[in-house]
């Protein structure tokens, strides 16, 4: 096992771990707000549940990059890495979704909290409320894309 493999697996692990932490954090704070709304108005359950789930996607994106990485470095397929610098390349390729996933999921969670408040006051404005958290997610999608493109082209 070369040092390159260590680097690559570190990157793969971080992308699921950090993005997952972010999503858990975001979904967590949004869930608290959602539970508060449902305690007052149980009819809003479906709507606030959707809003709560929105910050959950970063964790999935992290998992995605991990899986693609693992399937290229000889863990789930592909060929083993023998040199250190290829491994480091995988590591850095994983960083965008790891870091942006963590931070954007947290902020998306906060935006979801605000949107849940909006739905509580004006249930008919659900379409608009959903859009605000989705805006934050754009940057997670961009970093996911960069990570995927980088990993698949190493």
């Amino acid at each position, binding site marked *: 096992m070369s040092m390159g493999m260590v680097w690559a697996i570190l990157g793969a692990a971080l992308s699921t771990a950090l993005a997952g932490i972010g999503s858990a954090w975001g979904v967590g704070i949004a869930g608290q707000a959602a539970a508060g709304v449902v305690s007052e108005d149980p009819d809003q359950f479906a709507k606030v549940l959707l809003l709560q789930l*929105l910050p959950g996607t970063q964790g999935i994106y992290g998992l995605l990059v991990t*899986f693609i990485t693992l399937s290229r470095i000889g863990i*789930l397929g592909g060929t083993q890495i023998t040199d250190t610098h290829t491994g480091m390349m995988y590591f850095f390729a994983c960083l965008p979704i790891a870091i942006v996933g963590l931070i954007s999921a947290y902020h998306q969670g906060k935006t979801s909290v605000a949107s849940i408040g909006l739905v509580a006051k004006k249930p008919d404005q659900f379409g608009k409320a959903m*859009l605000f958290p*989705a805006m934050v997610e*754009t940057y997670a*999608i*961009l970093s996911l*894309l960069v990570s995927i493109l980088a990993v698949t082209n190493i």
Partner: protein
Amino acid sequence: MAIVEMQKLSICANKKHRKKVLETLQNLGVMEVDTVHIDDPDLKKMDTASMRNTFVKSAESFDRALKLLAVYAPENRKGIAALNGRDPVARAKLSQVVDDRQKYLDDMTQVLHADKEMTECRGNITKDETMIAALSPWLKLGVPLGFTGTKTTAALIGTLPDPITDDALYAQASAGLEEPVCVSAEVISSSNEMTCISVLCLKRDEARVEENLRTIGFARPAQLADGIPRELTATAETDIEAQKKKISELESEIASFGKEREEFRIAADYYRTRAEKYKLLGTIPQSEKCFFLEGWVTKDKADRVAKLLTERYGALVETEKKADDEMEPTVLHNNRFSEPAEAILESYGLPQHGRVDPTCIMSIFYVIFFGMMLSDAGYGILMFITCAILLKKYTNMDSGLKRMLKLFFWCGLSTTFWGFMYGGFFGDAIDTVAKTFFGCTGDTILKPLWFEPLSNPMRLLVWCMLFGVIHLYTGLGIKGYEMLKSHDVKGFICDIVSWYMFLTGLIFLLLPSDLFASISGMSFHFPAFVGQLSKWVTIIGMVIILLMSGRGRKNWALRIALGAYDLYGVTSWLSDVLSYSRLLALGLATGVIANVINLMASMFGGGVVGAILFVVIFIFGHLLNIGINALGAYVHTNRLQYVEFFGKFYDAGGRPFKPFHTEDKYIEIKEEQVL
């Protein structure tokens, strides 16, 4: 694909037909009544607030009674409650309920009264239980708690904070008393918190004994019911039994009204509708003999409404011109495919009259983009079949829900299409199954019709951006169409054509460049004249934008500066186009996660156990994946429409059409067609 034309009607009718006219309009539900524009000081308005409040209260009481019925006489309804929609009710049934409404009001009051009594009973039970708990340490006491003694003896009944034995208590109580000591001391019960004692002594010693006891913290009990504790407890227990029996009687009394549930529902809606009518009535200007109404109707129904009111009630109905400060409400009409997408448009905002209704164009892009993001044939098939079954089975469901399901039906079809294009059927399920259980080791069985995204993401990214450019160009085109419609040819050339030229030219300059080839791995070779042409087209477009964007300004320096600023807007085009990369990212996400699920499911190998675990993990995992990715696809398709597409041309600002109609929460009147 259009905004329905509206017609303003003004109605004047004899007061004796007032009730009938209003009821007809309410049942038809086609007119948005608006009386603010009639102001004549001679016309008076009725005060209907108190009547209205009575009706609202009745409706709310029926709602409460129905909630109680749902608890004590649960209903057995087939299927999923949320999909059932409102109950269809024949008009004859409605009039029967309306005629007997006094009976139902009484029954409803009885239900609510029973509930109130039940609350009281529960209160009594709690009171009894508290008393039993408080008396439990005193059960061994044979005299009432308030017992103070006989003619010659004094009783000291109370509590001490710390545990004590009978002997110690006796010693403490009798300390310093003259002989013969006549004291009887007894510990009744002892617990961590307190010790209950009873001490008997001669009346003359009472002060002294009490003093002795006080030094170790003696306190008389807080006021409890007077009586022997054991008897009091027994009485309370019988009372609890009685109250419980009463509660169950009351429960069955409420449940006995379960058969009137339908009537209660009808009555609730009847009172709500009546409250709404009185609300309107309060705003209607009336003279001594007549009353006046104004309102909006869709143009195709205007004549028929007018004819109906004239023939039946001799009303005078005139068509009116729209006043300058008025805005007609917006009603959309679209074909069967696009109609469900109106909901998406509505949640952004309706278009104003005179503008374009983008629903039809949007719905096409919506369905395509949704399919690209979910992009799995298996998920798509599951989705459209589920929607089709639900739509077929629950014909009576709420119209909003119906529209949503119809939209997802089309999205499911599109998802299936894109799934086969990308070669995804529950991820790589077919190959995994073949490999794990049948030992096939060949090529992939389900080959993509187009290409597999993961093997060449850059190629798909370029395609996604191409779709983005088409989407955005369409948006710009709609803006151009609106400009042409209002005969603004100059604006059309300066703001629309110039941008088309500028952007298209730029794209054609970029395509053959080395930079593009090295990024995308595709190389384009155009003949030399295309390069020249696109260079000049770009420059002309750029010059038009630079010179003409600020054409409203006299000052040329300012005008050029504004033009340059507008030109800078090309960066927003760049970011808009890049935003379509989510089509790729979300498409990849679905496919790869589906593969991960298949991989996990097949980890247990072949054989019976492997097959069972495979099925369990497969079902659970893919359901989860459908849920989370369908949500993602829905949210991000909306975003592409709202932010990128609408950003190019659309500003809502239309007013939704709110016709005066029956307020039906539970029922739906089956109407004979009048219009």
